[in-house]
């Protein structure tokens, strides 16, 4: 039986910049550990990740009052042939006086139909523009598909029945396993409360790939 010693190429000091479709020795540390990069990090480095946000530091937005199923504050959509993989969602309320506060991040197999257009921001600064589209308009002014438990996936949810008090009003979602939005479809964020909408900042991130690269 042939026995082979497996080697890596130590390459810590001068990172390489090999061209596409070129075979190169796998990178190793000075100690000989093999260097790998995970799927999510590589997708971000390949300029395939985008952010959608709402509310700037001096101007939080105000959420919906009593969320109804067709209303969202933010969304991102892909057409047939594209796939969107939500990777992150952050929400922070800086005023929350209503009750029955709710935040939901969901995916569904149809695109939004109304709301102020938001151009997805590449997370690689200077990166390529998204093929996906997005919207951001507070107070539930983005129109999305009906939230039906039989068709709409809930990616993340946060709720509290009482006004802000001695509990955290910031929430972060990072997937253990991602939802896969095979276009046409999209993701959306709903934020609301009874009587008075909360004031908040929010952002979500996603990877965009051609469906052919997955399925």
């Amino acid at each position, binding site marked *: 039986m042939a026995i082979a010693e497996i080697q890596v190429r130590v390459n810590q000091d001068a990172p390489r910049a090999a061209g596409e479709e070129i075979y190169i020795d796998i990178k190793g540390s000075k100690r000989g550990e093999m260097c790998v990069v995970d799927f999510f990090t590589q997708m971000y480095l390949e300029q395939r990740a985008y952010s959608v946000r709402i509310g700037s530091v001096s101007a939080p937005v105000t959420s919906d009052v009593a969320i109804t199923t067709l209303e969202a504050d933010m969304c991102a959509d892909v057409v047939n042939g594209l796939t969107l993989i939500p990777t992150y969602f952050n929400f922070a309320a800086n005023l929350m006086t209503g009750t029955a506060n709710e935040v939901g991040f969901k995916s569904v197999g149809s695109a939004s139909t109304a709301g102020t257009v938001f151009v997805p921001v590449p997370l690689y600064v200077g990166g390529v523009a998204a093929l996906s589209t997005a919207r951001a308009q507070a107070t539930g002014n983005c129109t999305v598909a009906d939230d039906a438990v039989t068709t*709409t996936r809930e990616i993340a*949810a946060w709720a509290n029945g009482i006004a802000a008090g001695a509990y955290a009003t910031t929430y972060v979602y990072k997937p253990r396993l991602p939802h*896969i939005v095979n276009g046409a479809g999209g993701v959306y964020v709903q934020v609301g409360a009874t009587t008075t909408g909360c004031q908040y900042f929010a952002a979500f991130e996603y990877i965009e790939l051609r469906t052919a690269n997955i399925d």
Partner: protein
Amino acid sequence: MAVETLRVKVNQDVPRSVDEDNPADWKGSKRGEGCVIDFYTQMALEQRVFQVRAGSVSAPLVGDVLITDQKAEMAVEAPSGLTLMPITFNWCFNLSAATLFEVALKSRPWTTAITFTTQFTPLNLYIGGVGALSRAYVDAAGGVDVGANEDLTLDRLHYHWAQPIAAGAYRTTDTWEPIAPSALNNRAIAYVQIGADTTGPSYFATFQYIELLTVHLS
């Protein structure tokens, strides 16, 4: 002894779409790191992850009043030959005015059939993905009967949250994500219980699981 240096193929700009059962060169970054994908992400991309959810945005469900042994809000059952791996569970209350709140996720080997009024078709996390072979049930106020009393020697407790007072200075949202999944096979059942005394909490909840044929595991 032969010496071999592992090589990767740089492939950042135009991702490949290699057909099943064909060899593909190991993908590498421009810097030479080997690109890898974790088990959970790959399972989702292969359309093997499903969701069971309770409560839509305008219609939260109401939990049980005093959880009793075999009463659950949500459950999923693995038919023979299938293995389920529960991997995330998220719940939140948007009304919790009673006391003695409890939320739990458990699993048990099959002993008796689940009794239910509402079957739930599991949602593939891959939109447009294949249908589940597993069966799920959702019914508020403890409407899913898992068929047998909780037995400390049979029922696995994956997650338990409790709070004795009404909503106040504490979070009413939580997410369970185990470091590694339990494997439920041979008609095993995973179930969620949510309740309180006097008045059940209004809640939204989801749990996700991987579905694989048992022969792929053992």
